[in-house]
């Protein structure tokens, strides 16, 4: 059965060109980049090239502002703990209510340690509550960390504006840009960002490698202590093949952003969304239609439950994900949809389709053909479907 992969916000295919670029660095050019001999030392230049490729993708002024990490979770944790450790007198930190657990959990940990923490809410379209943010931001704020784009709904936050307000109060600004990098133009200089996290596998790079951008002159304390690697900012032998893969993926992503691929992905996404809205009653799109990454749509199907929809789609080879409680085993629907105040009858039945440049029109046509009978079938089983009538 052909796999129709519409779950690209979870992970993406590692591009064949990326794999090809990585391969020599496993068994052939396996030297340690820190070695004195040419065999290993040459890999220093290989890493520097990847660093430049990543810097170019996010508009960093200097390649040395890129620190390679093992994943975006490490990048997020490094940024947060560095910000509080380098400003020990400040005891207030801010984030949004819809962040990834890699932000949420360190924030909750710091709250338990005595920090004042504000989780800024969102409105029904998932838009950041700028008024409340401005009310709570003060001179005691050490860090504001707000995601660039939301993984579940694709909603883009006004990062440049949030960063500007943050700097007015003298706090550091970090953004988890995992769902934005590679999907939309990201420029750390224009947006005035102090620190930014990104992950390779979200834009056709390998899993197990990420990066943290730290602007020059930003106070920084390493999260992993040990060797001198990454200019003493991230200890641990450089993962040469994965860093090369991340660099190559960044280069390819920059090309896609420049050549109009994003617009093609958005056109397919819109076709899927409009098709569903036109053929299935009681559906609702979650997120801000005006400010959304081009590949994501999050749609709620009223009166039925998301896991059931996913399982029927799975039988057809279609991969998507859901904010339903049942899929996580957590018993509660997605914290993002709840923060948006999505009613329960819609939150449990939410499905996220996330496309990539590999998604074809035929894929979308198949979903548009197969989805309506699935929804109809589940609604027939549901005791609430009459409510919809």
């Amino acid at each position, binding site marked *: 059965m052909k796999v129709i992969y519409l779950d690209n916000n979870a992970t993406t295919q590692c591009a064949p060109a990326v794999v090809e670029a990585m391969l020599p660095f496993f068994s052939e050019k396996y030297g340690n980049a820190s070695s004195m001999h040419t065999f290993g030392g040459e890999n220093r230049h290989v890493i520097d090239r990847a660093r430049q490729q990543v810097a170019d993708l996010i508009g960093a002024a200097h390649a040395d502002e890129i620190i390679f990490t093992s994943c975006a979770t490490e990048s997020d944790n490094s940024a947060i703990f560095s910000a509080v450790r380098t400003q020990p007198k400040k005891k207030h930190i801010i984030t949004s209510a819809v962040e990834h657990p890699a932000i949420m959990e360190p924030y909750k940990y710091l709250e338990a340690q005595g920090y004042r923490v504000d989780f800024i809410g969102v409105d029904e379209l998932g838009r950041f509550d700028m008024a409340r943010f401005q009310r709570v931001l003060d001179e005691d704020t050490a860090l504001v960390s707000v995601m660039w784009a939301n993984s579940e709904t694709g909603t883009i936050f006004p990062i440049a504006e949030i960063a500007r307000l943050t700097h007015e109060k003298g706090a550091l600004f970090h953004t988890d840009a995992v769902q934005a990098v590679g999907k939309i133009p990201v420029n750390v200089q224009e947006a005035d960002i102090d620190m930014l996290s990104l992950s390779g596998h979200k834009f056709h790079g390998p899993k197990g490698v990420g990066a943290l951008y730290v602007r020059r002159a930003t106070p920084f304390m390493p999260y992993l202590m040990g060797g001198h690697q990454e200019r003493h900012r991230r200890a641990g032998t450089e993962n040469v093949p994965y860093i090369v893969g991340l660099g190559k993926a960044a280069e390819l992503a920059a090309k896609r952003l420049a050549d109009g691929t994003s617009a093609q992905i958005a056109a397919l996404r819109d076709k899927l969304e409009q098709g569903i809205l036109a053929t299935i009653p009681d559906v609702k799109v979650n997120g801000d239609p005006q400010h959304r990454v081009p590949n994501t749509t999050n749609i709620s199907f009223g009166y039925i*439950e998301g896991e*059931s929809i996913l*399982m029927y789609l799975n*039988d057809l080879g279609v991969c998507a994900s859901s904010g*339903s*409680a049942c899929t996580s085993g957590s*018993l509660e629907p997605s914290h993002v949809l709840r923060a948006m105040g999505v009613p329960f009858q819609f939150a449990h039945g939410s499905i996220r389709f996330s496309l990539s440049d590999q998604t074809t029109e035929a894929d979308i046509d198949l979903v548009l053909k197969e989805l309506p009978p699935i929804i109809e079938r589940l609604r027939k*089983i549901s005791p*609430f479907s009459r409510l919809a009538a």
Partner: protein
Amino acid sequence: MWDYTDKVMDHFRNPRNVGAIPNADGTGQVGSLVCGDALKLTIKVNKETDVIEDAKFETFGCASAIASSSILTEMIKGKTIAEASKITNQDIADALGTLPAEKMHCSVMGMEALEAAVKSYRQGGAPVVFEQQEEKIVCHCFNVSEETIIKAIRSNHLKTVEDVTHFTKAGGACGRCKGEIQKILDKVNGANQAPAAQPKTFAQMTMVEKIKTIERVLEEEVCPKLNMDGGSAELVDLEGSVVKIRLTGMCSGCAGAAGTLKNFIEKTLKEKVDSSLTVEQA
């Protein structure tokens, strides 16, 4: 990705007996949109024989909720009301092969809907919504009563709060009731292990336990009284049943020290800890 059995997937893909029986003899409902799963079970019963002749379901929920409901209708058809009433959530899970631990609450929902449908039949057919007893609600997020939790613990031999959450959903949202669930677990499981709960005799205790017990008695029973005279006492050593104690503060060097040791401290330790103990000044 859940590890669903082929049987679960079969009943999910081809659910049996979907719908609602018009003019049903019994209608049981459980769950709600808020909870994320709900089941409405209707039954047709032969009034002469009490045999369930037909059963249909409507379910809002995940694959395992639909499969549990579907197989339940098959299990009860042809059974008398009395026979059907004996079906437990474990029977439903067994009929499906098994369910992932986190999904056991789906089988519990089936059992509850059946209970409500039987009640509805016995009361003349008006629909019955399965209700938790209001006054004993433990988990307010999912509206789960103490009775449901106790029943789930007993029939499924649950040991931890996590188990209880998997089976009943209680404690799965805000988690505020987890302490209370632990107490219910202790109560229910503690009752089965009553002999083990008996306090150890002094002779059975480890050295650390002996010392801790003596120190606790000194702290709670002895020192407060000595403190009133500006003195105190501390445990220095324990050799067999001989407790060596040093009197401190005003008590140290007091003419009545020997009397205090024997008449008060030794007496208290004999009473509260073990009759074999004797006290000596360290």
